[in-house]
């Protein structure tokens, strides 16, 4: 049996996942991260994007995290997400719409919008769409 490590994903609203995993693949502040059991202690930020967990037995589960922090200890991984959802629960139509709305806002070129916020919005929606697509590919 492959070795496993305890992983929990919590968002400000609720605990989303807690259990043993074989590996975690996700996007950190400075790039893709693949975390296997026995990883050295690591503290980094989370970039909006998919979090892929390989569960015990090889099954894979995909989540979407919109930012936050991740703490890695050799025996435990904690993902403190700002918001996180199961990929199954993601709503593609809503993500597309939100992205278009943000892009329209940007295109409107009004002076009272917060460019940083809108750009972050767009990035987040794009990440969400990426998660959805990846998840769909995998199911097929």
């Amino acid at each position, binding site marked *: 049996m492959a070795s496993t490590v305890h992983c929990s994903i919590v968002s400000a609203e609720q605990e989303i996942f807690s259990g043993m995993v074989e590996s975690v693949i996700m996007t950190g502040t400075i790039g893709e991260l693949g975390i296997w059991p026995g990883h050295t202690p690591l503290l*980094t930020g989370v970039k909006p994007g998919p979090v892929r967990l390989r569960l015990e037995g090889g099954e894979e589960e995909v989540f979407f995290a919109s930012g936050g922090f991740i703490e890695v200890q050799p025996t435990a991984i904690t993902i403190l997400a700002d918001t996180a959802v199961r990929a199954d629960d993601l709503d593609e139509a809503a993500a597309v719409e939100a992205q278009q709305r943000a892009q329209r806002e940007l295109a409107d070129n009004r002076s009272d919008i917060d460019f940083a916020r809108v750009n972050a919005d767009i990035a987040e929606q794009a990440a969400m769409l990426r998660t959805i697509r990846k998840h769909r590919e995998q199911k097929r």
Partner: protein
Amino acid sequence: MANTKELRTQITSIKNTQKITSAQELVAASKMRRTQERMAKGRPYSDHIRAVIGHVANASPEYRHAFMIEREVKRVGYIIVTTDKGLCGGLNVNLLKTTVKHIQGWVNEGVEVDLCLIGNKGAQFFRSYGGHVVAATSHQSEVPQVGDLIGSIKVMLDAFEEGRIDKIYLSNNVFVNTMTQKPTITQLVPLDAEDDSGLKHRWDYIYEPDARELMEGLITRFIESQVYQAVVENVACEQAAKMIAMKNATDNAGDLIDELSLIMNNVRQAAITQELAEIVGGAAAV
């Protein structure tokens, strides 16, 4: 003995009060469920982030954030979370009593104390009790927003960073169950190292991208989440305590009504008996 009419008015007035208290009991009961759900949802995050912060405080980091350094204590700050409204039994009183005792401990050592009050009841209490209040906020909605809380906490955190305050405590009620709420005082900053013997050797994280930036963000998030959770928990405590207090009040009103009804019936019976005796006496005299 009081006359029947007086007693009847008294009973009516108690009945009216009973109606109000039982209505409030029902309102509190329905609100309680929602507030408890909200509290339960937020708990994992605040627990996990506390654990992570505990690890961080235990590590031997290359960069020590201002919030991680213990200093000689000359002035301490308290963030005290109370309710806005009363009628919730001993909830606030217990919390304030515990806090005042804690504060007294510091005062006896010659340490000065600053207060940051969240909630109306605390503000009222310290207005008469005295104390150096640096920030106060009240009339939080039942769905507390982190944004509304940040301002008043920031006063404290800034003071800490500038070195005017050397320790900050968070004092709030912790929801144990519907019947029990426990006044609790926790140290917010400097960060409390978690006692974990398994991690005692010297070690440090790899920080990506930069320890300083990361710590800044993590610690801010930690403090926000702790205070937010304290406020959410306090709302749940308030509704639970209110429900119990109102239930007791309704029961007491019921007892009082029973007692008064008994007296009233006695008085009425005595009056009838007396009247009969008078009629019989009158008839005998004729």
